[in-house]
Every structure is written in C-alpha cells, then in structure tokens.
C-alpha cells in the first residue's frame, strides 16, 4: 500500500497497533445470553373464533407423547420420561383448573381435549395426526382463523400443547383452538429443566387469550 509505504516505522507500528486494538474491541454479537434459561422462548396462538372466557370440561392423557418423525404413526405410542411428563401434565392441569375448567375422563365427552407432546429434534407443527389415534379418533387438524407457524431446532427440546374442540369436528377435521409451545436448550440438570418447564408453561397460560 502506497500510504503505508510512505509512513515511517514508528508510524506503521502505531497504525498497526491501533487497527489491532480496534479490531479486538469489535465483535458482531456482543452481549450474548449467559444462562441457558435465556434461550427459552414461549409461543402461543389461538383461534379468534373460540370463546376462552367460558369454563369448559377438558381431558388430558396420562403421559406426554414423544414425537419422532422416524417412528411410524401406526406404531405403539412412545412417551417422554415421566419425571418430565408428569411435570407438564400437572402444570397444564393446575393452570386450567385455576381458570375454572374441570378435568374429566376422556370417555366423559370433554368439551376440550388437550394433546401434550414433546420432541427434541427438527420438527414441524403439522406433524402427522395419526400419532394420536391411540387416544382419540383419527381426526385431522384444522386451525380456525390462525396459522400456528412452525419451529425447528437442533439440540433443543420443545413442549407442544394443542387444545382441540371435539364438538367442532367437520369432515373428520378437529379444530385446534389453541397452540402453546415452549422451546429451549436441552442442557442443565433435571431440576433445572423441570423448573424451566414449569416456569415457561406458566408463561404460556399467562399469554393471550388466557391473560
């Protein structure tokens, strides 16, 4: 470089040192999250056509379905570890009953059926409804008035809750009236993960339309 060649040795040294120091000060992404909790994100969406302010009866399965794209939907269902699954179910139960909803057996014609599931790899919301044929009729899903989007992940865990309205089934498509998702890194102790599940599911039930 002509400019640098015209500079003396001391000047070149000063210029080089300045560039080095300034470059070291830079960085595209300073202030990154420090704790695994800071990577947690909660997403909810719902049908604007459904009245959530009423009290409903609802049913929950006894375990949280483990979703795996590599498993045939017709194969026997698999469930996530009960130490996490029970926390998810207890949280959903607690949040809904605190809003005046009543849990009933799935055989007692509940007004709302909750489908809790979890997965730990790349995945779409629009997974095969056949995974739930062991629990209730093999309906397809519809999202009345909204689109739930999708999430993908790598080394992440996602808890997906879908609220379905079996009284609204048309053409064997059941309306999914609410979708709640918690996504975060699969890192930390069991106690840490359980605490994060509890905290983030509480957050999901504090967001519209439940707030």
């Amino acid at each position: 470089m002509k400019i640098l060649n015209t500079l003396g040795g001391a000047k070149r040294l000063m210029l080089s040192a300045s560039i080095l120091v300034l470059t070291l000060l830079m960085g595209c992404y300073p202030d990154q999250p420090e704790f695994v909790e800071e990577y947690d994100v909660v997403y909810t969406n719902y049908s604007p056509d459904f009245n959530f302010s009423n009290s409903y009866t609802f049913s929950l399965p006894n375990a949280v379905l483990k979703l795996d794209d590599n498993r045939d939907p017709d194969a026997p269902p698999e469930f996530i570890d009960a130490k996490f699954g029970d926390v998810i179910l207890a949280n959903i139960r607690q949040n809904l009953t605190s809003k005046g909803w009543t849990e009933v057996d799935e055989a007692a014609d509940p007004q709302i059926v909750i489908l809790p599931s979890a997965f730990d790899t790349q995945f779409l919301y629009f997974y095969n409804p056949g995974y739930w044929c062991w629990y209730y009729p093999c309906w397809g899903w519809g999202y009345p008035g909204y689109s739930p989007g999708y999430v993908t992940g790598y080394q992440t865990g996602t808890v997906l809750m879908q609220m379905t309205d079996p009284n609204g089934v048309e053409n064997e498509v059941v309306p999914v009236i609410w979708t709640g998702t918690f996504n975060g890194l699969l890192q930390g102790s069991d106690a840490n993960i359980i605490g994060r599940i509890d905290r983030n599911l509480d957050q999901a039930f504090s967001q519209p339309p439940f707030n």
Partner: protein
Amino acid sequence: MKRVLITASLLLFFAVSSFAQTKFALTYSIGFPTGETSDFFSKTSWRGINIDYHYLLEDNFAIGFSTGWQVFSDNRGFVTETSGTETVSGFRYNYLNSFPLLATGSYFFDSSSDLVPFASLGLGLTYNELEEDIGLFRNTRTGWPFTVRPEIGMDYEINYGVALRASVRYNYVASGNTLPSLPSFGVNVGFVWSN
C-alpha cells in the same frame, strides 16, 4: 453488490493514493442511537471503527471515501410481544452491524495551522444487518440503505505528518426494503496520517 462496492472503493483508494497530498484517518467511534434506532437500542455503542481517506484537490478541499464498522447491541431483557393472536415471550437481544461506504467531500479551514477544523459531507450506502434474537430464534434483516453523513471535527498535528483527530458525525440512514431508518450520532477520536 457488496463485492462491487468494496472493489470500487479499493480501486479508488489505490488510484488516488499514489500521488498528490493525501490524508488517511483511523478513528475509534462511539455510537449514540437516535430516531428509530432508539427503538431497538437504548445503549451507547462502544464498538466502532472508521477509516477515512482524503485526497486534497486544493489546500483546503478534499474528496475521498469513508468506511467503517459500528456494532450496536442491547440486552432488552425478558419481553412479551403480541401480534394479532400470536404471542412470543423470551429474552430479547438486538444487534446492529453497520458498514458505511461513502464518498466524501471535506473542507479544511486552516491548513497552515497545527489545529485544523474541518467539515465533511458523506454520501453513499450503508450495509446494515439488524438482528433480533429471542430464545434460539433469530430474525435477520439486511439492506443497503442510502446514507447522508455530515461531520465536523478538528485535526491537531502532533508530529510531522501525524495528527490527532476528534469529530462528531450524524449518520442519517434511510429506511430500506425490510429495514427501518437507523440513524445515529458518532463521536470519533483517532489519528490522521498525511503525506
């Protein structure tokens, strides 16, 4: 587009640096968000660098170019954002990496003195990369918005051919296809080398 602009800038740099009087400035830049930039960043940016080249057509007037890199970042804490029926909550981190590429015209008020005030105007483009992180998800928006950058400052000669520089800039960065307008103020200190 980016490659063409960088190549053109380097060609201009080498072409005009081989003769006549020139000034080369390297400055540290502190950025202050203003306008819509303040909607994304409340914090001062302490990470900035500028490179300015002046080719003196006359004793007092120079043309040249200016480039640099300014990084704004902000930890917005836990946020809950609702749009229609959708609600997202999590810890929000915003980042802006800004690379201006400007042609400049500069006027040096008293080139015979050790203390030389100057005023400059830069016109060109800024490559902006605005990133909004929430959880593990990142929304990235990039663009090359039009930029106007007035600047005032002064050079103080400390040795033959070497001066200290202090200046203040306003970076008006227009909105782009997906980017909002992202203006900022800059306070710069550094060195100027002349031949």
